[in-house]
């Protein structure tokens, strides 16, 4: 399953995502520079990595969405290709309108780098199908602007359509204010688009996919993607 990792100026988790897909999952991966375009059929998965694209100038993710490579991402999205935005990648997906809502600075105005617990909100997606519903997963966060916001109507829709992939929770899976690291609405840590082929999330699954790093909570997310794809290939829906 072929993966593209988009490299914006200022991306810094590009090598981490590439490493996990290629060396941990053993699947082909390629870097795509932001100035380059590609055809929707070139890749099965596109990762928008974390970092500080364009130095976070103007607003986080606001300039990246105009990159030539993003034009190709929009076409791939329309064709139902899988797109995963992590951290700054999530922020870019919001700015580009592929996902609803907006990101604000963390409530306490500080950068946060530590582990959080996540409750899996839905398992009926290409990204989370190997998790159990309600499963509690530990993952690291590292961001200054993860305070997700959207209008009431949007939130209700996200909930009703099972599009909230992850909630911040405590170690027992309780979604509480104390467990919310950044002030995000409803403790939202990751959301999906209507077609559920696009996931944006603030935590970093690529930073917890190997035993040596002391946590493999994120590995299942990548395995879910691969499992979903291979299932589709087997059933002949994609090839």
């Amino acid at each position, binding site marked *: 399953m072929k993966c593209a990792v988009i490299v914006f*100026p*200022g*991306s*810094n*988790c590009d*090598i*981490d995502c590439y*490493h*996990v897909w290629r*060396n941990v999952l053993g699947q082909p991966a390629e870097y795509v*520079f932001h*100035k380059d375009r590609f055809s929707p059929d070139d890749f099965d998965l596109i990762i928008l990595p*974390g*970092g*500080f694209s*364009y*130095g*976070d*100038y103007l607003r986080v993710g606001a300039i990246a969405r105009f990159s030539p490579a993003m034009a190709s991402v929009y076409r791939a999205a329309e064709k139902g290709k899988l797109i995963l935005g992590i951290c700054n990648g999530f922020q870019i997906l919001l700015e580009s309108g592929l996902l609803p809502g907006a990101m604000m600075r963390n409530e306490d105005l*500080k*950068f*946060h*780098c*530590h582990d959080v617990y996540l409750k899996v909100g839905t398992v009926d997606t290409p990204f989370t199908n190997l998790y159990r519903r309600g499963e509690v997963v530990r993952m*690291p966060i*590292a961001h*200054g602007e993860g305070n997700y916001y959207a209008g009431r109507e949007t939130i209700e829709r996200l909930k009703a359509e099972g599009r909230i992939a992850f909630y911040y929770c405590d170690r027992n899976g309780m979604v509480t204010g104390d467990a919310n690291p950044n002030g995000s609405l409803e403790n939202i840590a990751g959301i999906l688009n209507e077609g559920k082929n696009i996931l944006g999330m603030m935590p*970093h699954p*690529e*930073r917890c996919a*190997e035993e*040596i*790093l*002391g946590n493999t909570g994120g590995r299942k997310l990548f395995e879910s993607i691969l499992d979903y794809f291979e299932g589709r290939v087997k059933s002949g829906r994609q090839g």
Partner: protein
Amino acid sequence: MAGRDDAKKLGLSDYEYEEIVKTLGREPNNVELGMYGVMWSEHCSYKNSRPVLKRFPTEGGHVLQGPGENAGIVDIGDNLAVVMKIESHNHPSAVEPYQGATTGVGGIIRDIFAMGARPVALLDSLRFGEPDDPRVKYLLKGVVSGIADYGNCMGIPTVGGEVYFNEAYRDNPLVNAMCVGIIRHEEIVRGRAAGVGNSVMLVGSATGRDGIHGASFASEELSEDSTSKRPSVQVGDPFMEKLLLEACLELRKNRWVVGIQDLGAAGLTSACSETAARAGTGIELDVALVPRREEGMTPYEVMLSESQERMLVIVEKGHEEDVQKIFEKWDLHAVKIGTVTGDGMLRVLESGRVAAEVPVKSLADGAPVMKREGRRPAYIDNTDIDYSRLEMPSNLNEVLLRLLSSPNIASKAWVYQQYDHTVRTDTVVSPGSDAAVLRIKGTRKGIALTTDCNGLYCYLDPYEGGKQAVAEAARNLVVSGARPLAVTDCLNFGTPEKPEIFYQFEKCIDGISDAAKALGTPVISGNVSFYNETKERAVFPTPVVGMVGLLEDVERHCTMAFKKEGDVVVLLGLNTDELGASEYLKQIFGIQGGRPPRVELEREKRVQQCCLKAIELGLLSSAHDISEGGLAVALAESCIAGGLGFKGEIHTGFRADALLFGEGQSRIIASLPQKNLSTLIELAEELGVEITVLGFVYPERMDITVKNDGSITGRLSVSLEKMTCVWHDSIKRKVEE
């Protein structure tokens, strides 16, 4: 022409001015004098420190590059090497904490990738006044967010360091940043302007008026009008540096790259004269070709600007366009500004007209060396304490909790959680343990990193303090499972013209040298920062030791956390009756005095060998160095980190408080499964290391009974919850209230 009075304004003495006239055979002009002013400042020339720095051991089988380059390099096998350096940004951080810290981080990162290495880790060693002081809070918050914003944006994890609080640093905070890179041997690039006729190119940011005289500013004491020097502080742009990093790493792959040099203190002047001096060449450049961000800049301003995120690149003639192609990809400038010459002169033109012409060697290496004399300060002979007059506190539980909440011992999570320490997915042991451990992808290897220095020890006994800093750094690596390899040091002191300060400096260096020799860890790079002094006082002598160690198998790393109930807890090394200079004396009695604990280097070496061997054999569940707060605090830290407790009985002829809270050196606490105990005892005996069983890992509480000849002389019993709570939130409470 510029005369003596102008020279004085630039910090040059009459004697130095005469030397310049002698060298040039004429009076210097304004531009030339400005260039000498910065290059002959202490910051750039090390004119006060050079003779003493020669005492450091700088060679060893695995050293690939010692002091004198952008950074030092040490071999780690498999054709790989570690590049590392530590540098201070104290003066700028004192007047403008946020930008001072960001540019400190930016500068040290450039030193690493100038060598061709990919930076993989940052550490920061910080010193502030007491945290309840409003100004200290302002400085701490500014420095921490500056480090965070720069390092985080660069995608380089900040994996370790230290934060100490002491009144001695109230007006002069210390901000030392260390960067570590990994490189393949054949990729090493040096800062050399070799090959007459080769092109000298300036890449990265445009040049502005920021930071002019930054190096001179860093070479004087801070005073009331230091805030007026704010324009001497540069402004950092990590996004620009990230692009510059990627472009330079692409550049290094080409054989036609001759040299790369960071533009730091003294800007173009320093980069040109240093690269040419190393290669025995000269450089002719035209300032009119330098891309500017401001109009009307004079040659003086262009040559002295310390605008950030710039590099000097020397390439073989004919490859200028190849360089431009790489930098264009990253939307960066790359402009040929000059040529390497054979005449040994730095010739600065402005649109063809000569604006300055001076011998490269005299600028880079010609500053007259100051032979300073040290004098033993009177206070050192008056530090003894009559311990019999200090009454043992009746409630040792309260003492322990007080120590755990001391900002020098309490959790630094408030600081390091603002730093991205997990990016690059190599961080195996995160901040908060004895040392950080990183894996090296594609190999079985790992490296361990730490910085250490106890300023109070160095103040009370500079020689012992210097020795202790090296010993503790090595110990921190060893308890993590790494073999110590090499040192980079950041020497922070007061004004060297004062004999008492110079004495501290010399003695600290002797201590570092002796320990570095004994432990086999040569000094491969570093930085001197003098003039950390205001009218009232100098900082404690603070020679920060940064150290790297190697793990052949990173899976075999170790942490301080107790792992399993029932594990036996042992002490490697000997308990001593040393309470001097302890955090206990400071917190409980308000005394900063006494003789700091001694390091016996032979014993230190044996204890470290024993611990390292035990970890390599897989005998240990945990290992932890005993430092500030002594044995009781070290046990508490292992409990807190592991979410477990401890129960034990310790026999001693010393006072209970000396046993529990004294900071005697060369001691390690380890826990291990009972079945491994006999093997460990054999190993210890073989190496001549004292080993004592202290107790066992228990759930939920720490219970220690101290006995002398069968009678109880002290007792500690505190719940894990209580210890964790005071330890964890202390700094946050103090800073944010």
